[in-house]
């Protein structure tokens, strides 16, 4: 039975290219096409979310009301976060997973190609639904991306749309994650044992598990928001015996692992790039795997560090304080390993490496402020101020986003067969790295001095640092147009230089993807590879 099938498949495989025209992208089941769709969509959303950030920074440029209504300002902070998290960073990593995981483990495609297509289109549907709320009576949700009741229940016509968009995005993420996990467990080439997998694959395996576990929790939470608003339930209403704080528990049970969904694949890409440009094996491969798993485990038991000020019982404060501090240990292991990988390496500093090094340094900043906030008594000072805004932006922008840029520079030559312009790449790096610090570093001072987050106006003593921060923000925003230019330019031919299969010196020793031709053919590894590179271990 299987033999018959094999036959005519082998056949089709070889002559089958992509469908023609626009339809190719709509009905595709090819992991590379879908990866491209995810990446392009994420890049577009990065600019949409970025424009919202520009509105926020413009309004905060000076004290007093400048450009927008307070309600709209709050919609902007809310939508900026939701678009960046669910529309840009997460999809970008799913895009990388789609492109790279099959190539890294020697598989012909993802395990469930039809579902793969559906995950992408559900993402588009979810984001469309979310974006549509901008044009509704009462405006887009404005209570913060955490959608806390009772405030969020005052949203106008947008509320049910926001809830259903979370449902759609949730289904999309769960399907994507199931696909990734099944691919990694079931599609590895012979000899690609778990402990030989590139770290990007490992981190995605664990991230996939996180996603499957947490997205339903968030979906359940917002479902209760919906029933509280429209069907008379009392889940988050003390009069009926419920509790608004319950929503916060549910949200952060999702929310804390969610931030690790954005950072674990980041770790994976960094662990892939750094050894190649340090020309050394990754230091402490297995400790990286265990550290990732520990971080994922811990991420489920620390959620209430976001709720130190809501009136938790003292035992809760203490427990969540100590458990949160534990996270710094596996995180520290990772930072140590990246540093040790570079130690005495013959390093070169191409753009992907520059972004990766900046990631190691600046992510550590974010980790350290995290540690400060994990101290419950101190967090009473930091909570809901710009200090925490600085914290999570350090962990997300010069970490996740920088690593996404690094991944772009690192793999674009493989994907397109063209080399990007190194000079402009480096310019993009330096502009980004400097401006991101002008943008976010002053926010630490603002927060410590007491400037609350999510407000369109502020007291005059905060004026100077806000103006500096805004200037950094505008430079950062403008610099990203360079990235857009480079991506388009590279796709259309780049420097014109013919790239080799390896692209980067000795890269083929580090990962299977570099054994394939550049640009990568539409179908790869129809028959599994025989040699498994092990330099990354």
């Amino acid at each position, binding site marked *: 039975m299987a033999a018959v099938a094999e036959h005519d498949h082998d056949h089709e*495989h070889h002559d089958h290219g992509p*469908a023609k025209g626009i339809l190719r992208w709509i009905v595709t089941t090819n992991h590379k096409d879908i990866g491209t769709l995810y990446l392009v969509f994420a890049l577009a959303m990065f600019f949409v979310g970025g424009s919202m950030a520009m509105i926020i920074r413009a309004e905060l440029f000076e004290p007093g009301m400048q450009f927008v209504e307070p309600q709209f300002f709050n919609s902007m902070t809310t939508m900026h976060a939701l678009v960046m998290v669910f529309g840009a960073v997460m999809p970008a990593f799913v895009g990388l997973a789609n492109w790279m995981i099959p190539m890294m483990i020697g598989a012909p495609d993802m395990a469930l190609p039809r579902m793969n297509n559906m995950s992408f289109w559900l993402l588009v549907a979810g984001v469309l639904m979310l974006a549509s709320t901008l044009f509704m009576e009462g405006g887009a949700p404005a209570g913060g991306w955490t959608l806390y009741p009772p405030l969020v229940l005052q949203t106008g016509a947008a509320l049910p749309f926001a809830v259903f968009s979370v449902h759609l995005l949730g289904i999309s993420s769960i399907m994507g994650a199931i696909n990734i996990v*099944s691919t990694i467990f*079931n599609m590895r080439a012979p000899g690609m044992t778990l402990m030989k997998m590139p770290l990007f694959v490992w981190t995605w395996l664990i991230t996939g598990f996180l996603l499957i576990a947490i997205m339903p929790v968030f979906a359940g939470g917002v479902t209760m928001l919906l029933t509280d608003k429209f069907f008379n339930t009392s889940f988050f209403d003390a009069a009926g015996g419920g509790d608004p704080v319950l929503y916060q528990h549910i949200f952060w049970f999702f929310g804390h692992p969610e931030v690790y969904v954005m950072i674990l694949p980041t770790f994976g890409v960094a662990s892939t790039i750094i050894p190649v440009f340090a020309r050394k094996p990754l230091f402490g491969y297995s400790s990286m795997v265990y550290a990732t798993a520990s971080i994922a485990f811990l991420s489920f038991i620390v959620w209430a560090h976001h709720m130190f000020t809501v009136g938790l019982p003292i035992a809760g404060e203490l427990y969540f304080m100590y458990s949160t501090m534990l996270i710094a240990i596996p995180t520290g292991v990772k930072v140590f390993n990246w540093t040790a990988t570079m130690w005495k390496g013959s390093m070169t500093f191409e753009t992907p490496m520059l972004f990766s090094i900046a990631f190691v340094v600046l992510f550590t900043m974010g980790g350290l402020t995290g540690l400060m906030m994990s101290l419950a008594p101190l967090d009473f000072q930091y909570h809901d101020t710009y200090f925490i805004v600085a914290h999570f932006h350090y962990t997300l922008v010069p970490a996740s986003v920088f690593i996404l840029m690094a991944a772009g520079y690192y793999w674009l030559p493989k994907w397109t067969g063209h080399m990007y312009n190194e000079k402009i790449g480096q310019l993009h790096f330096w502009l980004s790295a400097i401006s991101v610090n002008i943008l976010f570093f002053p926010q630490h001072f603002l927060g410590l001095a007491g400037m609350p987050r999510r407000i369109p106006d502020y007291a005059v003593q905060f004026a100077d640092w806000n103006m500096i921060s805004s200037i950094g923000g505008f430079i950062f925003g403008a610099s990203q147009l360079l990235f857009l230019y480079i991506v388009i330019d590279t796709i259309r031919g780049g420097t014109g230089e013919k790239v080799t299969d390896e692209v980067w010196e000795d890269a083929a020793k580090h990962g299977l993807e570099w054994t394939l031709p550049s640009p990568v053919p539409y179908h790869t590894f129809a028959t599994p590879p025989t040699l498994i590179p092990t330099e990354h271990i």
Partner: protein
Amino acid sequence: MATNNAYYIPHQATWPVVATVGLLTMLAGFANYLNGSPIGSTMMVIGLVIFIVMLAGWFTLQAGESESGMYSTQVGISYRMGMMWFIFSEIMFFAVFFGTLWYTRNLSVPWLGGEGTGAATKEFLWPAFEATWPTNGPGKVGGEFEAMGAWGLPFINTLLLLSSGVTLTWAHHGLLAKNRDQLIKGLIATVSLGFLFVAFQAMEYHEAYTEMGLTLGSGIYGSTFFMLTGFHGFHVCVGAIILSVVLFRTSKGHFTPENHFAFEAAAWYWHFVDVVWLGLFIFVYLM
């Protein structure tokens, strides 16, 4: 782990996009309906129709491919993994609602009644409130109601679902032993027990609404009761429909002892729904 057998990769897929359009239309319609827009319900129906057509089309496609032997063992493993992880996500979904029940019963209601640091709040806001379960809170939201007992319909339903688990296993044995007759009888019994369960639950709800004053609006007790049992009841319906499809395919001669992923997936799902019910019976009705 991969073998050298070629892995079946479909070249194009139209059903996923149809599914997305259907879901989007349905949910956008529902949202419009909730906002009181007149087009809402029409949109919902259109979305639902698209979705049902999609389900029929997509499953027919998969069943056809499976029966013509296009799926290697490795493909089968992917499907099984997909189903297992899907059920895991469902477990987490139910966990939120069970967690909510636990939290309100053990934390928020006692706090409202003055436990922990809640004494002053209670004194000022709700001096008359006693923390008991069931409750509709200090505001007596939804008015007087009676809690649902365990030993009437719910207990009968427990017996129904447990026996449906047995009949399904019996059907599975029939499938493995190439005993078609046993397979079909077992499936018919399981599906019937499933739908009977749903009918009894409908009766239970009817009684709650008309005679006991117990509604979704009866404070936190009503909220958790109907959310948990309703969400579960929805799953029973879905499970019974999936099993009906399996029954239909069986009657067309599908499935062999080696190749019956759809049967297995449906059975896993059914047992999962079964176990959730046991949790409900204990935590919602008994305790």
